[in-house]
């Protein structure tokens, strides 16, 4: 079904356009939404978009996962493991920052009753 989509260049186009669309959704959310949680969701969406963009572009459908196991020992036909390692690191770091942000916004809400990023103006009076 839809065999013409299986070409590797086409896959790269799909990945690039799709992940940039996701990036756009995140950026749009960041610029248009006000609630802290929404802002953090938007940032997480942007990050996910980049991860998909990277892994998807480095993907070769004729290759295998970079794990040597029975029947899969041909090193020349494995996907590059470095992007996987980088994205692994980036996912964990992104999660840590988001968790910190969420806890800060909880405290901020407890103190001021405000969840709106545009109404953060403790210092303007």
């Amino acid at each position, binding site marked *: 079904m839809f065999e013409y989509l299986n070409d590797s*260049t086409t896959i*790269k*186009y799909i990945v*690039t*356009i799709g992940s*940039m*669309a996701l*990036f*756009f959704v995140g*950026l*749009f959310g*960041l*610029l*248009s939404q006000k609630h802290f949680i929404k802002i953090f969701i938007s940032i997480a969406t942007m990050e996910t978009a980049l991860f998909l963009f990277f892994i998807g*572009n480095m993907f*070769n459908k004729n290759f295998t*996962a*970079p*794990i*040597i*196991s029975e029947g899969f020992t041909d*090193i020349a036909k*494995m996907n*590059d*493991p*470095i*992007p*996987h*390692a*980088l994205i*692994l*690191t980036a996912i*964990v*770091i992104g999660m*840590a*920052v988001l*968790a*910190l942000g*969420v*806890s*800060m916004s*909880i*405290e901020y809400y*407890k*103190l001021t009753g405000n969840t709106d990023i545009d109404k953060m103006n403790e210092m303007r009076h």
Partner: protein
Amino acid sequence: MSGFTLSAVFVLTLLKLLLENIPQSMHRAGDSLLELNSTDGVANGVTTVVVYFRGFDTLGEIAVLFIASLGIGLMLSQNKRCTIKAQSNFMLHTAAKLLFPIITLYGIYVMVYGHLSPGGGFQGGVIIASGVLLLLVSHRDFEVPHSFIVALETFAGVCYVLIGLIGLFTLDVFLGNFLPHDISQMGLLMSGGIIPIIYIIVGIKVGSEMSMIAQNLIKRGDDV
């Protein structure tokens, strides 16, 4: 709608620039890494990269988790803890008790087999922490033993740096693989020298940090 226009213009420009020259397949650092990978006797290429070739990144990463957990503890700390309200549903209570050992076992499996199959310290640690999370949600009076966790995370952090420094002094390489890592052992549990050990240490660290984060977020008192 100005946000919509702005982000649309930005992303369309990005897309135009990106689509104009999609990178060709070429020889990348990862390919040479894969060739070297077999000399370490570790089956999972990603594990070799994460723990060995880019070990300093992983050290930085657990430092990030450590600081984040510390910061969350700092932000949400207060004298008043969440009081025990209604006892949770009996089914939930029992199911959580039954599931927790299984989740932990699975987490340990993912952690220990990180150099042979997908998974490893991060994933295993987080899986164990999600088991703790389940207990925290279902058992209102359950608390993660604080001093035990502190001891655990300190032990893991210190071990990581010390193993790195031992490598530096014996092989002149930070995180050098000073334990025997024979290629013929590949695929066995005991293979890969220090790599599985470090990944287990990372798992302990990640698991304890994530448990603390979960505990702090759940047990935060409801009002000020």
